[in-house]
C-alpha cells in the first residue's frame, strides 16, 4: 500500500462489503459457536426472524415511519432557522459578535438532558420529540454555517466589489453561492446526528417509534428485536446519507467534490 493512492471503483466496493461480511461472520461465530449466551446477544438468523415478525405482526413499519417523520421534522425546523441565522452571522460581524458566544455555549448543552424539561413544557407528544432534535441540531448548524460563510475567499469578494457589486450583491451573489456546497455538506452531517437524538427522545416518554420498540424489547429481553431496530436505523441513515451526497453532487457540479 502506498499512502494516498486511490483505489479503483470495483475494488473500493469489494473492500467495503468485505468488512460487513467479516463482521457478520464474527457475530455468527460468537453466537452459533456458543461463546456468548443467547440471553445477551441474539444470532443473525434470530435477529432476521424477529425483524420479520416485527413487521408482520407488530406493525413496525408504522414505528419506522413515525421515527423518520420526527427526524426530518426536527431537522428541517432546525435548518429553516439555523441556516439563515448562520448566514447572517457569517456575513455580518456585529451579528456574529452578538450571537456567537451564546451559541457556542448552547452547543455544548446535551440535547438529551433537556428531555425532562421538554416533557414538562411540551408534554410527551410530537412537539417534545421535535424539540429534542431541534435543540440538538440548531446550534450546530448555526455555528458551522457561520464559519463556512465567514471563510468565503476574500479575493472573490474583492473581485465582485470591483465589478460594481454593493453589500447586498456581495451576500446574495458571492457569499451564498460560494458557501452553498459546504452548507449542504453541513446539513448532511447534522442529519446523521439527528438520528442519535431521536432514539434518545423515544426511549423516554414515547408510545411509538423505533426507540420505543427498543425499550419494549429490553423489558422482554428480546435482543434480536433490539439489534434489528438498531440495524434498521443504520440502513435508513446509510440510504439518506447516500441520497444527500448524490443531491449535493447534482446541485453543485462546479464544486470540487
Amino acid at each position, binding site marked *: 500500500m502506498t499512502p494516498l493512492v486511490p483505489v479503483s471503483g470495483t475494488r473500493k466496493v469489494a473492500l467495503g462489503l468485505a468488512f460487513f461480511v467479516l463482521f457478520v461472520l464474527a457475530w455468527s461465530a460468537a453466537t452459533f459457536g456458543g461463546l456468548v449466551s443467547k440471553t445477551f446477544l441474539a444470532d443473525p438468523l434470530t435477529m432476521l426472524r424477529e425483524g420479520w415478525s416485527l413487521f408482520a405482526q407488530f406493525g413496525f413499519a408504522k414505528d419506522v415511519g413515525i421515527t423518520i417523520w420526527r427526524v426530518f421534522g426536527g431537522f428541517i425546523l432546525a435548518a429553516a432557522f439555523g441556516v439563515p441565522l448562520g448566514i447572517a452571522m457569517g456575513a455580518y460581524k456585529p451579528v456574529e459578535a452578538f450571537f456567537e458566544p451564546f451559541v457556542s455555549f448552547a452547543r455544548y448543552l446535551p440535547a438529551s438532558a433537556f428531555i425532562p424539561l421538554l416533557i414538562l413544557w411540551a408534554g410527551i407528544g410530537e412537539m417534545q420529540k421535535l424539540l429534542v432534535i431541534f435543540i440538538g441540531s440548531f446550534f450546530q448548524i448555526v455555528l458551522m454555517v457561520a464559519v463556512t460563510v465567514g471563510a468565503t475567499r476574500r*479575493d*472573490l469578494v*474583492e*473581485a*465582485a*466589489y*470591483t*465589478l*460594481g*457589486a*454593493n453589500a447586498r*450583491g456581495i451576500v446574495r*451573489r*458571492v457569499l451564498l*453561492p*460560494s458557501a*452553498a456546497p459546504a452548507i449542504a455538506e453541513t446539513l448532511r452531517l447534522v442529519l446523521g446526528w439527528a438520528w442519535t437524538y431521536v432514539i434518545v427522545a423515544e426511549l423516554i416518554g414515547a408510545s411509538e417509534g423505533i426507540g420505543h420498540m427498543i425499550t419494549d424489547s429490553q423489558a422482554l429481553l428480546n435482543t434480536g428485536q433490539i439489534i434489528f431496530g438498531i440495524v434498521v436505523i443504520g440502513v435508513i441513515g446509510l440510504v439518506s446519507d447516500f441520497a444527500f451526497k448524490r443531491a449535493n453532487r447534482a446541485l*453543485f*457540479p*462546479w*464544486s*470540487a467534490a
Partner: protein
Amino acid sequence: MSKLAIDGVSRVFPGVRGGPPTEALTPTSLAVADNDFITIVGPSGCGKSTLLRIVAGLDQPSSGRVLLDGSPVSTPGADRGMVFQSYTLFPWLTVRDNVCFGLRERGVAPARQNEIADRWLAKVGLEGFEHHYPKMLSGGMQQRTAIARALANDPKILLLDEPFGALDNQTRGLMQEMLLALWEAERKTVLFVTHDIEEAIFMASRVVVMSARPGRIKADVAVPLPHPRSYTIKTSPEFSALKARLTEEIRVEALKVESGALVGG
C-alpha cells in the same frame, strides 16, 4: 487634464503587536493620460500592489487622494476594472455568466448581457467556452476570462495586478500579445503592475519604476517603441537598451531590500 491623478498618496500599516508602523508607500504622485498604458515595476514590497489597490478603492490611503476624471474615489466601483494575480473567477458561474456579473449587477437586460459578454469573449479568443465552468479552463484561459469580465463593464481604466504572474513563460508571452493587441484596438487606459521588466517594457508606453522600503517612484521612463508591437521587438537593440537600463535601476533597489533584510534580521 489627466484621466487618473494619484495625488500625494501614502499608506502606513499600523504596527503588529506593538511593533513600529510600516510605511508601505511614501507620498506618491502619478498622472495617467487618457489611453495611456502604464506599467509599474519594482521589487516585491515596493508598494506597487498597495498603490493599485488604493486606486481600485480596495484599500484606503493614509494621506493624499486619487482622482478619476477629476472626481475623487474612495470605494471600489465598476468604473475601475480590476484583474487580480490569483484566479478570481466565480467557480459557480459559467464563463459567460462570469463576464455578465457586473452587467447583471447594473441591471442590464439579460439578452444585452449575453451579447456584450459574447463579444468580449470573442475578443479574448474564448469563443466556444461560454458554458464551461472555470475549473475546466487553463490558468491562461481563466485570466483571459477575467480580463473580458473587467472590460465588459466598460470601465474608464483597467487595473491589472500581476495578472500573468502565475502563468508559465510561454503562456505569459501569448497573454502579453493578446492584451497588447486588445489595447491597440480599444485604446483603454491601463495601469499594469508587474515585477517582470521585459513584460513591463513590451506592454507599456511608460514604465514607472518603484523602489522599496519605503515604496516610492524612482524613475518614470517613456517607451518610444512603435505600435503595433510584435513579440520580435523583444530582441531589438532599442528594447535591449531599455531593458539594461531598467534592470540596473531595479537591481540597485533589490540589493537595498536584501541587505536591509540581512541587517534587520
